[in-house]
C-alpha cells in the first residue's frame, strides 16, 4: 500500500493512546501540554476553551475563572506562567464536571475583539458558516 500523510497522524494518535493505556488513562492532551510546554515561551496570545458539560455549548475561560459564551470576555493569556495556572484550574473544572474538552487555542486580538487563529476555532466561536433560508433565527 502506498504511504499516505494520514499514516503519520494515525501513528501519532496511536502513540498517544498507547501512552494513555500505559499510564492507566491518567493523562489527557492538556496535561501533556502542561508537561511539555510549561517552560516554553508563549508564541502568541492564547485563550482557554471548552464545552459546557450540561448543554455542550462552546465556552471560554474568563479571568475570573468562570466559563462564558462570549469569546471577547475570555482571558487573553500571553505568559507561560499564567497559562500553566489557567490550564491547571481548567482541568479542575473538568474534574468538577463543569466542562469537558478543554483546549488552549491561539488567537489574535484587535479592537477588543478576540479572533481564533484556526478556522476550526473560528467556526466554534462564531457558528456554522452555512446559509439556509429555512433556519429559524435563534438567540
Amino acid at each position, binding site marked *: *500500500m502506498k504511504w*499516505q500523510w*494520514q499514516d503519520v497522524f*494515525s501513528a501519532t494518535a*496511536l502513540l498517544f493512546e498507547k501512552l494513555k493505556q500505559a499510564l492507566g*488513562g491518567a493523562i489527557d492532551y492538556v496535561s501533556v501540554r502542561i508537561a511539555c510546554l510549561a517552560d516554553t515561551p508563549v508564541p502568541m496570545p492564547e485563550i482557554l476553551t471548552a*464545552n459546557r*458539560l*450540561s*448543554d*455542550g*455549548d*462552546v465556552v471560554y475561560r474568563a479571568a475570573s475563572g468562570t466559563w462564558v459564551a462570549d469569546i471577547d470576555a475570555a482571558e487573553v493569556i500571553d505568559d507561560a506562567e499564567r497559562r500553566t495556572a489557567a490550564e491547571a484550574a481548567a482541568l479542575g473544572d*473538568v*474534574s*468538577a*464536571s463543569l466542562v*469537558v*474538552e478543554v483546549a488552549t487555542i491561539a488567537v489574535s486580538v484587535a479592537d477588543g475583539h478576540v479572533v481564533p*487563529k*484556526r*478556522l*476550526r476555532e473560528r*467556526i*466554534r466561536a462564531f*457558528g*456554522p*458558516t*452555512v*446559509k*439556509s*433560508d*429555512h*433556519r*429559524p433565527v*435563534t438567540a
Partner: protein
Amino acid sequence: MYRYDEFDATFVRQRVSQFADQVERRLKGEITEDEFKPLRLMNGVYLQLHAYMLRVAIPYGTLSSTQMRRLAHIARVYDKGYGHFTTRQNIQFNWPALKDVPSILSELAEVEMHAIQTSGNCIRNVTADHFAGAAFDEADDPRPYAEILRQWSSLHPEFSFLPRKFKIAVTGAGHDRAAIRLHDIGLEVKRGKDGGIGFAVYVGGGQGRTPMIARELAAFVPEADILAYVDAILRVYNLFGRRDNKYKARIKILVHETGIDELRQLVEDEFRQIRGGVLGLPAEEVARIRAYFEPPTLTTRSGTSATLEAARAENPALDRFARQNLHRHKAQGHTSLTISLKPIGGIPGDASAEQMEAVADIAERWAFSEIRVSHEQNLILPHLALDDVPAVYEALAAAGLATANAGAITDIIACPGLDYCALANARSIPLASQLSERFGAPERQDEIGPLSIKISGCINACGHHHVGHIGILGVDRKGEEFYQISLGGNPDESASIGQIIGPGFSAEGVIDAVETVVDAYIKLRASPDETFLAAYRRLGEAPFKEALYGA
C-alpha cells in the same frame, strides 16, 4: 411497517431509564467523562464542535408519518428547529443539551425509535434500498431481512465490542441503490432456481481512508441459513480482525490481508458448526416478520395517468419534477416519489420541523403514511398513485420541497464537515451550496444529465466522495482548506473507487475546477445520452486531466 413487540418495547424503555440515570450521575459529577463517554456513545450522543449531537436510528430508512412528526417535535422543542438526514439513512440533531437527551429518547421510545447502536464498535443501523417493496426491478423486499438482522444484532453480547464499527446493507434488486459493495457486509436478495429466496453475500467493502469494493463471499445462501452465515462472518471478524490499530480494524483490511479465499474457508468452517442450530431461520418466523412489510393495498389503475399528463402539459415545472423525481413502481399507475432535500444553494439533508410535518401530512393523505430516508439524504414516498402526483407536487412546493433534481448534478451528498463535525478538516456544506448554485439552472442540469457530486470534509468519507462520479475530499493544508478531486467513483453494482485526478484546489478554486471537468465531459461525450460515468470510463482520466491542468 414493523411494530415493536413486547420485548422490543421493554428493552428500549429499560435502556432509556438506564441512560437517564447515567446522565443524572454524570451531571452530578458522580462519574467522570472517561467513564461516561462510552455510555453516551452507546446511546448515540456525540460531542461535536458546537454542541452535543444525537444520532437517531431509522432502521432501513423506513419511517411512518407519526414518527416523522415526532422528529419534527424534537427538532422544535429540543433543537434549533431542524434535523439533518444522513447517508446512513439516520437523522442527526445538531444542538441538543445533554440534560435533555433522556427526555428526547423517552419521546422517541413512544414512537418506537431509539439511538442504540448508532455509535460504537457494534453492528450499526442496517440500511436498505430506499425504494424497497416498491421498485419494479426487485426480486423481493429486502426490509424483512434487514429487520431480522436488526433484531439479531441489537444488543448482541458477542458483537457489542467488535474490533471496529460494522455496517450491513441489503438490496432486493440487481440494480444496487443501497451501495452494498461499500459495506462491511452487503446482501442482495435473489431468487433461486426453485423460486426460493437466498442472498448473494459480499464482504469487506468500505470507504474511509482505505476505500475498498466488497468481494463476493457466497453467490447464494438460502434464506434459512442467512443468519447463521452472517453470524459466522462476524465471528471470524471478531476473532481475527485487527485490534492493534483502529485504522486497520475494519473487516475490509482482514479481507485484504487474509485473502477472500482463505476468509471464505474460515467462514465456511464456522458456518458448518452453527448451521441448522438456533440461528436457523424458520419459515414461519420469516412469514411473521414479512407480514409487517406487506405492501399497502393499491387500487388497480391504468399504466398512465390522464390527470398527471394533463397537469404536466400545463405546468412545465411539474413536468420537470415528474421527469426527474419519479421512480417506476412495481404496480402500474403508481410511482415512488423522491422529495429532494437539496434545494438549490441549500444544505444537503437538512429539513426544518415544518418541512418534516409537511412530509408527514402529505404521506398520510396520499401515500399510506410511509416515508423513506435515502442514503443520498433525500426522502421518498414509496407508494403513490400517479393520479395524485400533481396534488402532492403542489403540497411539496408550498413547503419548499419541490426541487426537481433527484439524481441530477445538484443532488449532492455532503457530510456535515468542519461547520459541525469535530473530526473534519475542511468544510463540505458551503461547497455543496456553491456547486448547487453554480449548476442550479434547470437547463444546465438537464444538459449535464445524471452526475453525482459527493463531498467529504475529511478522510473518514462520510460524504461518500470515493464513490462520487465527481468526488471532493477536503483536507487541511497548513491551516488552509484544500480540496482534492477524484473522478469515476460509483456506488452501484458496477462499483468503482474514484481516482484522484491531480493536485488539489483551494476553496475558491475547486468550484471552477468542477465546472471545468463538467464542461470537458460535455465536449467529449459521444452523445447527450452518454452519461458522465460512461464517458469517463470510455475516455479515462487523461482528457479531464488535460482540461484541468493543461497538457
